[in-house]
Each structure stands twice: as C-alpha cells, then as structure tokens.
C-alpha cells in the first residue's frame, strides 16, 4: 500500500511533469508561428518582471483573480461547478457603479460612499449566485446551465446600462460610463496603478477562505457534501443548505472582485468589466486542486503571463493571446497528468480490499 508521503511525492512529480509538458507545448506553438520560443519566453518574463511598474500591473490582475478563485474554492469543495462566476463579478460591478452614481452628488462622505459601494457590489454578486442556487434546488436546473444563462443576462444588462440609462452625456460608447471623480476612487500606491486597499482585501480573502475550508465545521461539512451528499444526509448534513451557503459565499467574493474592478481599476462600468477573470479563476482553482494557498503563486503566474504577453505584439509581432495558450495548456496538461497519476495510483492500490 502507498504511504501518504510517497503519494505526495508522486503528486508533486506529476505536477512538475505537467508544467514541463505545457511549456513544451507552448514552445511548439511558437515554432509553428515561426518565432523563437526562447526569445518569446524571455520577452514574456521581461514584460512581467522587468520593472516595479510591471510587477505592480501583474498584481492588479492577481487581485480579482485570487478573490474569485477563493470563492470558487468554496463551490468546488461542495461539488458545484459555478460557471456563473462571470455574471456574479459583473453584477458586483454594476451594483457598485450604481451606488457611486447614486451618491456621488449627494454630499455623503466619499469614504462612506466607497465602502457602501463595495458592500453593494458584494450583495450584487450574492444575489446573482443565489439565483443560480435557487434555480438548481427549486427548478432542477443544473448550476452549469443556470450560470451560463445568467452570465449572458449579466452581459446584456451591462450593455443596456452603458448604452441606456447610464450612457455618457452626448454619445454612448463602448468605453463605458462616465469615470468617477478622483475622490470616489480607491487610492493607489504613489506612482503605481496598484491600490493597497485592494491588495489587503485580496490577502484577507485568502486567509478567510483558507481558515473556513481547513479549520471550521462548516468547511468540513461542505467537503462532506462534495464527496458524498447521500452519506452526508445520513450524518445529519443537509446538502442543499450547504450548497446554497457555498453559492452565497462564492457570490460574495465574486461581487467583491467586481466592486474592486470598478473602484480601484476602471473607475467606471465597462462592457467587459469581469475581463474573463471568472473563467480564469476556474482554471486556477482546478489547477491547484482547490487548495487556496497554492492559488497564491498560480494566480500570480497567470497574471504575470497576461501582463508579459502584452510584450509579444510589441517586440515580436506575435499575437498577445499566446499567453492564453500557455495558461490553457498549463491547465490541460496538469489535468492530463493528474488523470494519468490517478490511473497509476489506482493500479498500484487496486484490489487491496475485497
């Protein structure tokens, strides 16, 4: 029988092999695009790490990414595929924008407005997640399809607001609503685009979710529901209760991410406010096997690839989506290697018990 220590060693080995294969695959893609992979990887690294400003830019992406990953770690634990995460981020952004627009001329203290707006964003994310949850439990709609549908509605709602009630004076534009005054923005670290407040909230989110999943009764019960809802029921754990709770908590973090996109990054509502970080969060969550602490470096790697990828069109006339290829192949190869590992381990352990 395999000991736990051996198993951990094997797991790490397979993870590393997955990364090597992914990088190899990306190199192959580059060669096909008639580019030197070493130069390209060098450019990505240069683009991501060469200056403080670029590192800070990576953190600007890392913040929404890690916050959504935190939320998704909860829904994954309880066994749900919260595809509706994008819509939940978007609703967070819409609610936040709405509150700031409502209160910006009311004379209420700007600090209070920002706090209220962030809370409104959280509520927005939770409402959108709750709808998906209720559709699942009372309508029998799979959370995957409910989430997908709600994502489309959220996008449509954003476009409607930007081109309708919240349009810029004169002509509506894809560039979004009118930016808020300086006083309604979360302050940045001088000289950088990075807000220390967002960073603090992101770190807090990681700590909270880590403790929730590892050290609380609620977290353990969620895990039980995710592993076997039937057995959980016999142990007195209501799976629908904990699944709804997981939806709400995930919505909370998604809403927070959306609120920060508005108050700390764009200062307005734009059509693609979620920037795909919800889906990217799904990839990160899968890649780290729902262990939040591992999400910290992995989310940073993804963020750095996004920032570094911008260098490619400038330096090498390549498409910047190449960083997307690397990200996706990382996930794919990791999952493939994980599948191979499971197969191998189960072959070793197979039939030990009658």
């Amino acid at each position, binding site marked *: 029988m395999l000991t736990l220590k051996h198993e951990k060693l094997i797991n790490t080995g397979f993870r590393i092999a997955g990364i090597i294969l992914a990088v190899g695959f990306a190199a192959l893609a580059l060669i096909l695009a008639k580019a030197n992979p070493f130069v390209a990887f060098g450019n990505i690294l240069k683009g991501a790490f060469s200056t403080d400003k670029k590192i800070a830019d990576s953190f600007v992406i890392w913040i929404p990414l890690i916050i959504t990953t935190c939320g998704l770690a909860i829904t994954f634990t309880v066994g749900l595929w919260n595809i509706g995460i994008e819509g939940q981020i978007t609703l967070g952004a819409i609610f936040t924008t709405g509150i700031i627009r409502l209160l910006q001329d009311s004379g209420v203290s700007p600090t209070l407005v920002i706090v209220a707006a962030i809370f409104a964003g959280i509520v927005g994310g939770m409402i959108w997640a709750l709808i998906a949850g209720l559709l699942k439990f009372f309508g029998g709609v799979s959370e995957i399809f409910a989430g997908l549908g709600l994502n489309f509605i959220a996008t449509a709602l954003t476009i409607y607001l930007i081109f309708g009630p919240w349009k810029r004076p004169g002509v509506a534009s894809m560039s979004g609503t009118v930016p808020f005054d300086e006083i309604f923005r979360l302050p940045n670290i001088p000289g950088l685009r990075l807000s220390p407040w967002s960073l603090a909230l992101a770190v807090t989110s990681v700590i909270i979710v880590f403790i929730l999943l590892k050290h*609380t009764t609620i977290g353990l019960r969620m895990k039980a529901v995710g592993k076997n809802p039937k057995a959980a029921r016999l142990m007195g754990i209501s799976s629908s209760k904990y699944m709804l709770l997981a939806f709400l908590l995930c919505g909370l973090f998604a809403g927070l991410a959306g609120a920060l996109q508005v108050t700390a990054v764009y200062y307005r509502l734009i059509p693609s406010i979620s920037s795909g970080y919800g889906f990217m969060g799904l990839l990160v969550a899968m890649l780290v096997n729902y262990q939040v602490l591992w999400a910290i470096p992995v989310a940073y790697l993804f963020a750095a690839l996004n920032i570094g990828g911008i260098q490619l069109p400038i330096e090498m006339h390549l498409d910047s989506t190449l960083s997307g290829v690397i990200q996706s192949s990382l996930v794919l190869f990791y999952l493939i290697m994980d599948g191979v590992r499971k197969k191998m381990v189960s072959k070793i*352990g197979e*039939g030990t018990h009658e």
Partner: protein
Amino acid sequence: MHINLNEISKYYGNLKANDAVSLVIQQGKILGVLGENGAGKSTLMKILSGLIKKDHGDILVNGSKVIIESPKDAIQFGIGMLHQEPRDFPSMAIKENLVVGLANYNREVQPKFESLERLNDNLGFKLDFSGDVSQFTVGERQELELMRLLWLGVEVLILDEPTTGISGGQKDQLFSALRKLASDGKTILFVSHKLDEIQSLCDQAAVMRKGKLVDIIDSPFDQNNLVELMFGRNLSRIPPSRSISSSLCISVENMEIEDFRLNIRDINLDLKKGEVIGLAGMAGSGQRQFLQALAGLIQPVNGSINLEDERINGKNCFFFQQQGIHYVPTSRLEEGLLPGMTLEEHYCLARNNDRFFIQKKTNLKHSREKINTFRIKGNENSRVEELSGGNQQRLLLSLLKEPAKLLLLDDPTRGLDIESANWIWTIMRDRCQSNTAIIFSSSDLEELLFYSDRIMVFFGGTVTKPIAASGLTEDRLGAMIGGKEFAYIEA
C-alpha cells in the same frame, strides 16, 4: 480445459494479498474457493480473469503458459468472471447489453440470439430478452450475465460471492444451473465465505487464509474442518442476550409505501424498546423502502409512524435523526461513507458539534478511542476507501450516535465473514440492553432467526404481521419468503 496456477503472488506494499498460491483447476468440476474477508480469494480470481496484474507466477491453460492482461484476454482463453455486483448497463436494452462487448459487432448483422434462448431453457432460467435490464432483479441480472459469458464461449466460469443479494429461490436456480454446466464439461470456480453453499454445491474446496492456500479438500466436507481451515480455529455464532422492555418505542399504523415498481400496503408494527425485528424476503421486496420510510428518507403515501404518541411522518430525515432514529445503508462506500475523507474527519462530522472551529485535539482523542473500541484496522488518517469491507462496516456502526432509540440496518452483515458478523451483532445487542430497538433486513435465514425477536416477511407487495422468531424454522421461513404458507402467517 484445465488450468494450472503456479506460484501466483500479488503484493500491495507489505501486504501479501496472494502469497505463492498454486492451484490445479480440473475440467467439469465445481471448485469452491473459501476464505474469510481479506483472505485473498477475490484477488486470485481477479488475476485469473485479467482484472488485476499478478506480480509473480504463471497461469497455464491446458498446459501452456498464457498471458492474461485484461478481461478481454481472459475471455479469449475461455475464462469469464461473474462479479459480486452486476456489471451491466441498466438503462440499455437487454440485447444491447449482450452485444456491447462483442469484439467484431456489426450493426448490420444480427447476432445469433437463438443459441441464447436455448441456453435459457437448458439452464432453467426464465429470462425475457425483450426490454431493458432495469426491469430485472439483481438475481436475474446475474443470470443474464452468466448467460452472456457462456454465449461468448466461456469454458471456465468464475463466480464471486454470487449469492449475495439474491433470494433463496434464485439461489436454488443458480445452483442447479451450475451443476448442469459442470456436468456438460464446464469448469466452475465458486468463491464464497458461506460454508453451507460450499458444502451443498462444490466437488472440491480450496481454502485460503491470509493470502495463502491452506488446503484443498474433496467433498463431502466436514463443517468443523472447513471452519478450522478458514479461521485457524473453531467459530460459531454467539447467542444473543434478550432484553425486551414492555414500553413502546415506535408504532406504525396502516402504512403504505410506493415506489416506481412497488406498492406495499397495510404495514403495522408495535416495536418495543430493546426489541430486534428482522425483515425477511426476496431481494427487492420492499424491505429497504420500509427501513427508509422509518428513517424519514422517503415519505409513506398513507398511514402513520408514531413516536411516543406523536405522529412523525411528513417530517424530514433530520428530524428523525434528532429523535434518535438512524439508518445504516447496505452499500457502505456509495451511501454511508465519504470516500476521500479520513476516519478523523468522519468522526468529527458524526459528532455534529456546532462549534465554529474544529477542535483538533478532542477530535483526535475521540477518533482514537472509537477506532480502538470498534477494533478498526486503520488509523485516524486512513481514508475510508482504504479499509476492507468489514472495517468499513465497523466504522459505519461506530459513527452512530448514542443513545439511539431505533437503528435501521439494511443488511448489516452483507459480505462479511462469520467473525466480523458475530462481532457486529455483539455490539448491536449491547445497544439493545440500553433500550435501543433494531430493525434489520437480511438475506441470511440463519441470521434472521438467530438474532431477531420477531420477523416480518415481505412477499409480492404484502408484509406479514411480526411473527415470533422462536416459532419459526429455516425451512418454514424459506417457504414463506417464497410465498408459500402465507395463509398460515396471516392467521
């Protein structure tokens, strides 16, 4: 066709699942493979049928060495295995199930089903090949699988604990079919831990213990000798102590349960504290639904369940649990336990402590105590799927809250050897001393008669009133399960 197993070994880490097992399997014989849980019988059979790879040793078919790496290889050499659980596709049509594994199946050419019909008649089965597998009982699915293997040309049939979960009548039918097949020259390997089955069916018995082949003996067998070979010592069931109180635990009045294929009416029961009720009947006659209804897991259509003068049906299962009514399912890993989670996590969940943070220290202490008292072979960090069936059952029972009013056990000793079953019943009987009532289902007549105070028999949509077990014999109970003498019990 005869098979030689030469020094077959299989290791899992330090555990020797099979330790240099050599065995000659002769054509036209029914060879029983006997041993307690974990003795290595299934491992050996799975090696022969290509499901597991051996570490050492050779397999010889008709004297020449063969390499079997998959069930498909095994079938090509004429070796087929009938598994403990039916491995078919219940949602597919029966004919689709039959052809789905054919190597060279072509939709244009209709396979020859006539030979199948002949086989059906020959073996005395009464299977209807139109329709879906889902309409079959477990026993019929087994018959179908058996015929599929024969239809594929299998000469050596391996049956792994085939009588688990089938009724007495189906068992008789299966045994007579197996005898017929053996007399036609097929070779049968019959894996079981049930002595009476080996005694009544087999020509030869290979007894395994702790991965080794202990002995091969010819029929007729001496029961005590078999038990001694199996366990290394003599064992028998431990007689229970009776302790029924006169006060009522739960009463069921005119309950009616409905299921997509079952409808059972007029169930009445006055259960006393400390009493044990056994549920007898063919597999799938509604025993499970009855237990689940009493646990609040399914709602009865009619009638009432009363707990201390309060009508409690209609409430959800969590209310029943709070009242001290607990259900233990028969499929442990699928319904009762959480695969991937450790024993410690299980104990933590089962304690149902509502504190926000997990109390690591108290939990660990509690887990170790439980693992010790229930003699579970594993530690707090073991994951449940690493435990053997018997230990999983012990774990499941150790998770039950104390004190409980009523325990509902769905075939609690399914697939367990006598020693494990004895131990489980000792624990359960202890609980009855403290006024816990038990209702359990079982397919083992001896177990039902031995441990129950009263027995209810399920047959064809009806249930008898509880009958005192002391007034019943195995023959009579068997006849009632088969639907005979029903008038007698109604009286």
